[in-house]
């Protein structure tokens, strides 16, 4: 009886990853991709995405939910890369310079985002989601109208022919995969970008270490209960802003890594979907709105991107229409986020009513005695 409960509990806690394992298990044989192709794709995508997804962990720790505002960091990374490619600095120096340049932009954007989220406590997620749309407007204003006319941009390959504004795609051909190719190792036909993985490992170590620092502990306390944390003398507002700023800066780095792998910037659309895909991948790994670990990130990337690679082909095999698979994977990404949000909210409500019952019980006992 008890064992059965345990199994059920495990199933309930890991609904999303299990669902994904089933989807992947069904789709992989149907799609007919070879194992080495799949492995290659997955490893590439791990190198490309994990850093970005890790950026989501810190706001979850401080109880601010899924940071849809990571798009802001992505924008900062893009702006930095636009400057670097305008100055024609390529290769590793270009990547490093872009990362350094993105820091101040990310800090400003992150501080703005954090300030607003402090004004909207309790609905951080929807607010950060709208912030990402709002900043997208500002981003367009800067990149499409101010760059070249107010902000000096000289190189013709970056600037629109009309004299101001940035082209729809900025080619990063000269720094394409320069991080990934340095120290790359081939194992049985699978290219492993060792340096990128080393950077990711460093970030993981940093996050593990950060959790134990005073600031990390403060963030966890704020995440547990803001009022208790405030009573304990923690500056709640400041801690929350720092956690968003850190997330934004990391997202900026992540975007630089992501784009150097892709080899070009889709100036007006690269950032718009990134938040959604990163969040979906994290949730697929078994994370929830208030709890996420590094393990969730890795599992999530593997499962989510396997689905992403095989779904269009499998859909085409089953229905004879390749668009079905395309739509299917988009649907699954959204459905996963919806499911995770619903599960989180129901759990929170159940917990709340349980607490209320407990309090009632205690009061009854107190009045009885």
């Amino acid at each position, binding site marked *: 009886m008890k064992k059965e409960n345990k199994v059920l509990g495990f199933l309930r806690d890991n609904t999303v990853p299990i669902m994904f394992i089933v989807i992947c298990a069904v789709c992989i044989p149907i799609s007919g991709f070879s194992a080495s192709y799949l492995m290659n794709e997955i490893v590439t995508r791990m190198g490309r995405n994990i850093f970005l997804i890790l950026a989501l962990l810190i706001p979850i720790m401080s109880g601010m939910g899924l940071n849809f505002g990571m798009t802001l960091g992505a924008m900062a990374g893009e702006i930095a890369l636009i400057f670097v490619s305008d100055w024609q600095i390529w290769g590793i120096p270009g990547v490093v310079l872009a990362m350094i340049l993105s820091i101040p932009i990310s800090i400003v954007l992150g501080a703005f985002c954090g300030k*607003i989220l402090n*004004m*909207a406590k*309790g*609905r951080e*997620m*929807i*607010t950060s*989601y*709208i*912030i990402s*749309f*709002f900043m*997208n*407007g*500002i981003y*367009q*204003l800067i990149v*499409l*109208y101010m760059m070249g006319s107010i902000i000096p941009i000289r190189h013709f390959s970056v600037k629109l022919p009309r004299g101001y504004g940035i082209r729809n795609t900025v080619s990063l051909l000269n720094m394409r995969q320069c991080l990934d190719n340095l120290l790359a190792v081939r194992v049985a036909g699978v290219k492993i970008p060792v340096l990128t993985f080393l950077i990711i490992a460093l970030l993981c170590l940093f996050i593990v270490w950060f959790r134990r620092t005073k600031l990390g502990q403060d963030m966890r306390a704020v995440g547990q209960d803001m009022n208790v944390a405030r009573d304990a003398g923690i500056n709640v507002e400041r801690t929350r802003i720092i956690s968003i700023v850190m997330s934004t800066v990391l997202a900026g780095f992540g975007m630089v890594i992501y784009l150097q792998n892709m080899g070009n910037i889709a100036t007006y659309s690269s950032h718009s979907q990134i938040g959604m895909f990163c969040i979906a991948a994290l949730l697929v790994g078994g994370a929830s709105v208030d709890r996420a670990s590094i393990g969730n990130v890795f599992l999530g990337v593997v499962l989510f991107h396997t689905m992403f690679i095989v779904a269009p082909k499998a859909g085409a095999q089953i*229905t004879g*229409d390749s*668009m*079905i698979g395309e*739509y*299917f994977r*988009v*649907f699954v990404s*959204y*459905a996963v*986020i*919806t499911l995770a*949000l*619903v599960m*989180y*909210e*129901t759990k*929170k*409500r159940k917990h709340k009513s349980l607490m209320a019952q407990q309090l009632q019980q205690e009061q009854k006992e107190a009045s009885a005695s």
Partner: protein
Amino acid sequence: MNETLDKTNLTLRDRLRGFVDSFGLPRLIIAAFLLMLYIAAPFVGAGFWMQISNTVNRFSWNAIMVLAMVPMIHSGCGLNFGLPLGIISGLLGATLSIELGFTGPTSFLMAILIATPFAVVLGMGYGWLLNKIKGGEMMIATYVGFSSVSFMCMMWLLLPYHSPTMVWGYAGKGLRTTISLEGFYDKVLASFLQINIGGLSIPTGTLLFFALLAFGMWAFLHTKTGTAMTAVGSNPTFAKAAGVNVDRMRMLSVVLSTWLAAIGILVYEQGFGFIQLYMAPFYMALPAVSAILIGGASVNKASIANVIIGTFLFQGIVTMTPTVMNNMIHMDMSEVIRVVASQGMILYALTRKTEATK
């Protein structure tokens, strides 16, 4: 002497601040901006009357979808970011009505009739979900909308539609991304009693239809059920103590909102002349949400006047900025202005402190 002067100064400033606070600074800026656009329009050679009729036309297309926000705000479910769900019921009604062979004005009536059961069923499911997750409605509503739109993307391809006006010509199956309504219900409301004076044209029928629904909504909010719904929104504990079934009221408001969204998209289509499928409904909630907020609503308070003022201001900016700005500075910055103004407005509303925290 000095003291009294200070005092009057202070009160004047206070009064001004009070006005700005009550009206909302962003709202003031947007209204002033629109006014400026109207004043500037004749000087830059954009026909004033044409601009006015454009605005009125777009108002008539969109007003019902903005009206759909009202019931859920009243019952305390927040802004209905899940509007696409209702839009999908409307699209199902529209496509099925054409598939079943109705033409002309009948097709519009049938579209409404067919969309209604879909809206009620989907709305009940949606309402049931929102009742389970009180407090987190807005985020989940957003994603319910997104999931349903992407799910229907598959369905539009897979459902066995056959009408040659709607499916892809060469494949013989799968609906097109845009379907022309010519011969069906294109301008069916707009051309009813249409007024044309010089450059000004007013789609009287559509406006009347909106007025009818808006009046219906106003009257409903003043019935016993409507008052109970408002009570649920402003103080659920009190409403529960007064014997109101909170969950049922919220469910009713969600169904109502979903149904209005379905009707709203049908009216939009008859004005626009096309049915847009697949990813088109994806972001349709955001303009409606920001319109009602610009009109003076907040996350938990909204009236019919907010709907009318908001839709007019929002659609005014949408229609005026491209023409006026283009002529003025030869840059098409309308998209940026629209995004910043509408999202800024939503952000402003979300960061306001609301009395009733659920």
